[in-house]
């Protein structure tokens, strides 16, 4: 029998304060899940970058729109969704911030950092056509292989 998934869902306003709020929520959840201090920090930073993307690019700072943050605990992984109400994007279209020609750009490192701090990152189409950023991290003592979701 597949054990039930534990799920936390938070609807955030499209405002700068939501970035800190989302980061703090994830850090507390990650601490409770037994992640190391370093991984708690990394998860907080990954979610921060995801919510910043949703705020700035997905929802274009439109206060009428919302950002949906969801955390799910499956058998061996934590899966985070950050869904905006924009028009979506493809990861392939994101420029490589490590390329020589991009090093002096003042933006464009958020996706890279999300990838660096989680085990897997993908982008799906959200229910209203916006981006659904999906990040996952293996639970402590259960590392190895790609996340399944």
């Amino acid at each position: 029998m597949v054990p039930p998934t534990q799920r936390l869902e938070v609807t955030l306003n499209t405002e700068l304060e939501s970035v800190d709020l989302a980061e703090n929520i994830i850090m507390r959840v990650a601490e409770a899940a037994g992640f190391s201090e370093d991984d708690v920090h990394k998860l907080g930073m990954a979610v921060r970058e995801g919510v910043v993307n949703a705020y700035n690019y997905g929802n274009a700072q439109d206060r009428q729109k919302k950002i949906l943050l969801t955390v799910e605990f499956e058998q061996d992984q934590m899966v985070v969704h950050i869904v905006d109400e924009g028009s979506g994007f493809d990861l392939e279209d994101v420029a490589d911030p490590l390329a020589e020609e991009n090093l002096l750009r003042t933006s464009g490192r958020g996706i890279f950092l999300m990838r660096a701090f989680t085990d897997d990152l993908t982008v799906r189409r959200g229910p209203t056509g916006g981006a659904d950023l999906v990040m996952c991290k293996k639970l402590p003592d259960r590392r190895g292989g790609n996340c399944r979701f």
Partner: protein
Amino acid sequence: MALQGTCRDVGEIAIVDFSGRITLGEGSAMLRKTVRDLIEAGRRKILLNLADVDYIDSSGIGELVGLYTSARNASGELKLVYLTKRVHDLIQITRLFTVFDVQPDEAAAVRSFR
């Protein structure tokens, strides 16, 4: 903690001691204003002391990159000193050690300016 910065001079070098978080919003705006004011005041040798900066996000990194470019365009130099481990790791994984001149301590930083 919101970013705070205090400026002091060592000869021609403007040293800004920052403390707090350099993140999207007030932190990155404060960083930008402080350094741009120095550049606009004609300061050409600027050292950012980040010993008490325990957190920086991609917006903060972008701000640092922009200020590095601004200083360079004004024929000046902007350097960093005393990176905390987390800031150091971020600068490393984003390959920005190939851009920024990061000095190990203030004395070495002061000597390194042209």
